């Protein structure tokens, strides 16, 4: 059991060590994919063990796995496999363009693997303190990945990212301090006051006033890292400047890992204060995020920033689903986490390739992509359709589930407001996508660079990763049976029953 539970953390950590020692070469390029696949496999094994059984704890109560943690390990593993499988082709392109050298490639390999290990630590942590430290570690590890290219834009993005996220996570720490204070006053021993199990068991005795401040700070703090408005300012910059596979990981899973922390806090808050307090907080940030995303997507001229704002929208939807709070809503939220992660990873990887080939992230530079590079246009177009919530992709099913649960919970007005924002977003993204894929090019044919047509062709390994991601997302939309039992068990944990 202990080997299996440590594998999702140890395998990427070993791969990180491998990259530090050996550097990024032809022989080691697939090490990261291998480690990610290994952690995905151990996630699946953990899920089969804990579904319908009791949670397991190892290392003297430092790490713990229940259905929710196991599900998150699977999500992290699946998206890490996609991002890592596309990395060799991406770095080869960066080498060719002179944007990277052996030293920065070595650092890329080490930091991405350490980043995956930190996210797995966060979801397997048994206590709020360890979870906090792991999430803070992800900020520090990804800071240099965001600033990978050393350009003006990427350094600015990295600075903003570290400052805003460190402030957010510091507020979350104050929340932890206050929750610890309230917990110690219920008679819990200080060493275990932050464990999920003891906190939930003693939640009814927590002092209301202090817990209220603590929960508000925790939602605000972890919400910063989730990219929820009003603390979202870092997200479009960081996600648009990071290397494509890192953007895929950050947007696809890191946001959801921070959201996982909010789900855990919500269980404690619901037990201590009743469901109303966390619901109000989540509704405010959900509607604010959806509005911000809709307003800023309308006039967006940069396709990478467009994808980043789209992430803010989806995080808002997750918060809305969590506010509804029923078991159906939470199962839909968890399915949405996986669907959004897969589709967003595919899109960021496609956009990264596009950026490498064209040297510009302007929507106008891409016009007429369907005629120039059908495969890339296909992954980009289909990915956007999936993200906009069209069937057969799993996001359709999960959004429907969240809305139904929202109406059932008496949040019809909030769901209607959310649908209105989504309508605006749908129109904006569809028109940008139409422009990129089918629009007429304005530059005269004589000035066109024939090299860019060659560069637009997707390498086979990257194409395989993109198609696999889209296929998984579609299969999950048609039938969620491989995950049904796990989703059910994980939603029970997240609902606090």
């Amino acid at each position, binding site marked *: 059991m202990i080997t299996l539970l440590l594998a999702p953390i140890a395998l990427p950590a070993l791969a990180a060590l491998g990259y530090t020692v050996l550097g990024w070469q032809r022989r080691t390029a697939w090490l990261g994919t291998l480690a990610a696949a290994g952690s995905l496999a151990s996630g699946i094994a953990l899920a089969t063990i804990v579904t319908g059984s009791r949670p397991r704890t190892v290392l003297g109560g430092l790490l713990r796995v229940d259905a929710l943690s196991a599900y998150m390990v699977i999500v992290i593993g699946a998206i890490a496999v996609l991002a890592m499988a596309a990395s060799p082709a991406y770095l080869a392109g960066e080498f060719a363009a002179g944007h990277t050298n052996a030293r920065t490639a070595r650092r890329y390999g080490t930091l991405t693997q350490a980043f995956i290990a930190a996210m797995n630590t966060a979801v397997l942590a048994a206590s709020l*303190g*360890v979870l*906090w*430290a792991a999430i*803070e*570690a992800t*900020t*520090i590890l990804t*800071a*240099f990945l965001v*600033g990978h290219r*050393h*350009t*003006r*834009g990427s*350094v*600015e*993005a*990295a*600075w*903003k990212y*570290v*400052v805003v996220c*460190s*402030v957010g996570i*510091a507020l979350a*720490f*104050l929340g*932890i*301090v*206050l929750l*610890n*204070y*309230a917990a*110690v*006053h219920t008679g819990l021993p*200080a*060493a275990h*006051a*932050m464990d999920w199990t003891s906190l939930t068991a003693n939640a009814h005795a927590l*002092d*209301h*006033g*202090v817990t*209220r*401040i603590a929960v508000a700070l925790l939602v605000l703090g972890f919400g910063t890292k989730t990219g929820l408005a009003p603390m979202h300012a870092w997200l*479009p*910059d960081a996600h*648009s*400047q990071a290397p494509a596979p890192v953007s895929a990981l950050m947007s696809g899973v890191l946001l959801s890992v921070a959201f996982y922390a909010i789900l855990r806090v919500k269980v404690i808050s619901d037990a201590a204060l009743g469901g109303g307090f966390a619901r109000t907080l989540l509704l405010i940030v959900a509607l604010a995020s959806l509005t911000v995303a809709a307003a*800023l997507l309308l*006039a*967006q001229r940069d396709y990478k*920033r467009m994808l980043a704002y789209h992430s803010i929208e989806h995080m808002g939807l997750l918060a809305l689903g969590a506010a509804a709070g029923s078991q159906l809503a939470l199962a839909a939220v968890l399915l949405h986490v996986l669907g959004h992660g897969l589709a967003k990873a595919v899109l960021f990887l496609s956009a990264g390739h596009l950026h490498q080939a064209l040297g510009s992230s302007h929507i106008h530079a891409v016009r007429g992509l369907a005629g120039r590079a059908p495969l890339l246009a296909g992954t980009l177009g289909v990915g956007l359709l999936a993200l906009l919530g069209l069937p057969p992709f799993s996001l359709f099913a999960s959004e429907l589930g969240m809305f139904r649960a929202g109406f059932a919970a008496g949040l019809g007005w909030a769901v209607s407001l959310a649908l209105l924002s989504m309508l605006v977003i749908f129109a904006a993204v569809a028109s940008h996508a139409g422009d990129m894929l089918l629009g007429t090019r304005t530059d005269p044919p004589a000035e066109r660079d024939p090299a860019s047509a060659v560069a637009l062709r997707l390498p086979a390994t990257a194409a395989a990763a993109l198609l696999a991601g889209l296929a998984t997302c579609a299969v999950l939309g048609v039938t969620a049976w491989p995950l049904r039992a796990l989703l059910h068990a994980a939603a029970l944990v997240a609902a606090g029953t």
Partner: protein
Amino acid sequence: MNETTYVQLLDLACGVFLLAAVLVLWRRRLAAIVRLFAIQGAALAGLVAVLAVHQHDAELGAVAVGILLLRAIALPILLRRALQAAGETRETQPLVNVAASLLAAAVLALLAYAVTQPVVRLSPSPASHAVPVAVTVLLLGFFVLVTRHRALSQLAGFLLMDNGITAAAFLTTAGVPLVVELGVSFDVLLAVLVLQVLTTRMRAAFGSTDLDELRELHD
């Protein structure tokens, strides 16, 4: 140490701690801000030391020494080195002038007292009565962060916030579990190192560390 001395020493440490934060609002020269930050770190270490003596807790005493080394010596040295490399000594254009900043500080202190009422009520003791001071420092740090332009002033604002949070942690429960506290200190050190590297890169890219020049990315 008898109860009166304990309360007096605790209040003295908290007073110096708060005063240093307020003076940061007043001073424009970055070198002076770094010096104030070192004084505040020493006051924080003194605060923890007083708590350690009062509770006869040797472990807490060791933590006080650690805080002194990190926050009164190591971090100020890092900041000063970044300052020398930058070669700029004044905050040129804060968004809010000194008088308005000090007024804002008074408002933030009132806010801190109002918000932390439940914390004091849960277990009234000399230590928990000082929690509003810690929260005031946190809010002042946040204020510095959003109203100053220079990268280094922003860094100082972040560190003020962090000092405030650490003080709140020790005043409420004499510290979260030691593992977490160590992790936090380590994280702060790392975050500062990361930001220092980024300031160096920023100077290479922009020629100055004035965040006003960061106008590349916006909507």
